[in-house]
């Protein structure tokens, strides 16, 4: 209780609340501007957090994160163009409802669904993070290495059409992290005799260069787009219908809870962020609805589901970061960087080692949802006005700001050069169709993977331990199946083998779960076997329902 009170006082003071309010407003703006992602907002906030203590810094970033998730709904509902990928599904019903003459109600539904989704995920964060951290304490070096491997493979597999490009990006990220002095032995690697390379690349300049610099260059590539206003939102006198919307959201509590849980569990999964959760929740709400034909025409459930899910994702990704020390996406990777600046290393023992900071994060997440609700209600008109700025003006100032912010990290000019080089690299890489998320996570997770591998080998050089340790085997199986996931998605309903994919996953996972011992886990393993066998039986009897895939149908 004393720790909680201490954490509460760290957040509930005028200075921190002011910083959180500024952060939430910045997040709302970055979320409301199409093409200007939440990750960009968080990345740009980072340099300002150097002068703050760890609690203030992370609370400000949480404000940006939550604000960004909610900000996307404004342009999505009013213009039909989602501000962020996390509010794509909101436009499906939000925009039709606004065009039908109910923009205030549509915005209200979005605002309140975001709020309740955030609160549900905050409750789950408080409940689940310590439990998951307790599980994490069971992990040994082999398990950690396999977990990092799984995080990278799933990032690559979710990176779209071309998984090979995703995997290449991940591997390049891992390699970039090896340049410079080796953390394990202190030996210089790939420095080619150049001092600048011997020091290695700072993670944050690389990240800001790869992400922010290259994103801005992409935004201004087309001269016409560069000179256009950030958002084409027309000036409207809109009042959010709070009372009606809040009641409507609470009446649809089942959809709200299911969507929030979908969002939260998507967030827990490494690499699967709010861009995915809002679509999943929308799809689930449509399936659950007694009137699925109303979806797409301005249906209330069609706004509640994606908005509650995308805000709930934030809580889920914070759970993974706090409990396991693994960033789930670019946003939590930046937050992890912010914690490292303050000499706080997230790991399974983080909640025990830094209980005040951990509780401060929980409290900040709660507060952020209230702040965003308040800001969205009071400053809607101001946000619409801010998005009238032209992209080239914003990009030019932000590019200079990136340089200043990066310099402030270590007070060395070489960091600005790193930002510049990785800005060019990120832009070229992006232009060639490679996803940046696996690259960034590779840079973040590379040193972690190498250090756990070194620890594992220091204990024993026997590689069999990677498959005889239950958690390690669990993550390796998950990694193998995540590599095959994009093939499964393409072939589902077309190829026979795809029917056996999920049963095979359930049956395979039952082995390490059974090996974990105790009482509960073997029962879980039996459950997994039962589910796997039942799905196998169903798949076996689904003969004749396979449609030929496009490849198979192609004449030879």
């Amino acid at each position, binding site marked *: 209780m004393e720790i909680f009170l201490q954490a509460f006082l760290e957040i509930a003071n005028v200075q921190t609340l002011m910083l959180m309010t500024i952060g939430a407003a910045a997040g709302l703006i970055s979320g409301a501007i199409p093409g200007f992602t939440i990750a960009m907002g968080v990345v740009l906030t980072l*340099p*300002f957090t*150097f*002068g703050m203590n760890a609690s203030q810094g992370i609370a400000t970033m949480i404000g940006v994160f939550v604000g960004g998730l909610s900000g996307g709904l404004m342009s999505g509902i009013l213009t039909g163009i989602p501000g962020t990928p996390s509010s794509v599904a909101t436009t499906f019903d939000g925009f039709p409802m606004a065009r039908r003459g109910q923009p205030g109600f549509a915005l209200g539904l979005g605002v309140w669904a975001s709020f309740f989704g955030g609160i549900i995920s905050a409750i789950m964060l408080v409940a689940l993070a310590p439990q998951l951290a307790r599980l994490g304490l069971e992990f040994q070096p082999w398990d950690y290495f396999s977990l990092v491997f799984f995080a990278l493979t799933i990032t690559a597999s979710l990176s779209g059409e071309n998984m*090979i*490009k995703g*995997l*290449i990006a991940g*591997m*390049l990220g*891992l*390699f970039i992290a*090896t340049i410079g002095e*080796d953390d*394990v*032995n202190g*030996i*210089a*690697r*790939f420095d*080619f005799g150049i001092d600048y390379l011997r020091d290695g690349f700072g993670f944050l300049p690389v990240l800001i260069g790869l992400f922010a610099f290259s994103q801005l*260059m992409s935004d*201004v*590539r*087309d*001269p016409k787009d*560069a*000179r256009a206003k950030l958002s084409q939102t027309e000036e409207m006198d809109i009042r959010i219908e709070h009372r009606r919307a809040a009641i409507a959201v609470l009446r649809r509590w089942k959809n709200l809870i299911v969507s929030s849980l979908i969002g939260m569990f998507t967030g827990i999964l490494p690499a699967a962020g709010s861009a995915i959760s809002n679509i999943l929740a929308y799809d689930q709400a449509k399936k659950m609805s007694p009137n699925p034909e109303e979806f797409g025409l301005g249906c209330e459930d069609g706004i509640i589901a994606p908005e509650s899910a995308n805000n709930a994702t934030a809580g889920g990704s914070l759970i993974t970061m706090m409990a396991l020390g693994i960033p789930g996406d670019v946003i939590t990777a930046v937050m992890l960087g912010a914690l490292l600046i303050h000499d706080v290393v997230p790991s399974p023992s983080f909640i025990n080692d830094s209980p005040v900071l951990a509780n401060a994060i929980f409290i900040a997440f709660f507060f952020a949802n209230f702040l965003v609700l308040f800001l969205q209600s009071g400053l809607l008109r101001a946000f619409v006005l801010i998005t009238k700025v*032209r992209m*080239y*003006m914003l*990009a*030019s*100032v932000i*590019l*200079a*700001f990136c*340089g*200043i912010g990066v*310099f*402030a990290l270590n*007070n060395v*000019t070489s960091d*600005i*050069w790193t930002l*510049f080089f990785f*800005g*060019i690299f990120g*832009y070229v890489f992006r232009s*060639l169709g490679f996803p940046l998320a696996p690259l960034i996570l590779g840079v973040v997770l*590379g040193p972690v*993977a*190498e250090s756990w*591998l*070194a620890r594992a*080998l*220091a204990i024993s*050089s026997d590689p069999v331990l990677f498959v005889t340790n239950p958690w390690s085997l669990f993550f390796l199986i998950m990694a193998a199946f995540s590599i095959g996931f994009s093939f499964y998605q393409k072939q589902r309903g077309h190829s026979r083998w795809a029917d056996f994919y999920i049963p095979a996953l359930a049956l395979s996972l039952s082995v390490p779960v059974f090996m974990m011992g105790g009482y509960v886990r073997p029962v879980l393993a039996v459950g997994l076997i039962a589910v796997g066998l039942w799905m196998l039986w169903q798949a076996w009897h689904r003969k004749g329902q396979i449609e030929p895939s496009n490849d198979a149908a192609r004449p030879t």
Partner: protein
Amino acid sequence: MPFNKDIWTSLALLAFCFVMIAASFDVVSPDFGMLSPTAWPRAVLALLTLLSLIYFVNSVRSGQRGSAFSLKAFLIKYRNPICCFIAYFVFLITLPLLGILIGGILLVFVMLTILGENDIRHLVLHAVIATVSISILWCIFTFALNVRLPRGSILPAMF
């Protein structure tokens, strides 16, 4: 038949892998520790080489033809990013002389003028935006965050 973009990229990746694998033999191996400093990067490079090979084979098998390269078309298409990168490079080169304050103002002004309209009215607007934004950032970092930003050699000592 001109190669498509993916074939060129995969070839560049393969060349990169071979250079780095060769460079890994120059890394000193200490007598201590179970994990040699080259083991992890070599494992990563081996996987990267394998993936690049798969990428190369897929690109060749796709049968897509690349279009003939035109420098003029390239420069027109990528005018804005190229100009911004050059401006940033000049900003970095002149940083010891101009410092963040003057250099930053000039950088923002030049980029605004390259990317936006450049009639008199806009030039004045760009100058105001550049001066105000960088001055505010400079003040925040210098006075609020206590960061000693590069002053440059031409600015009087009082700054």
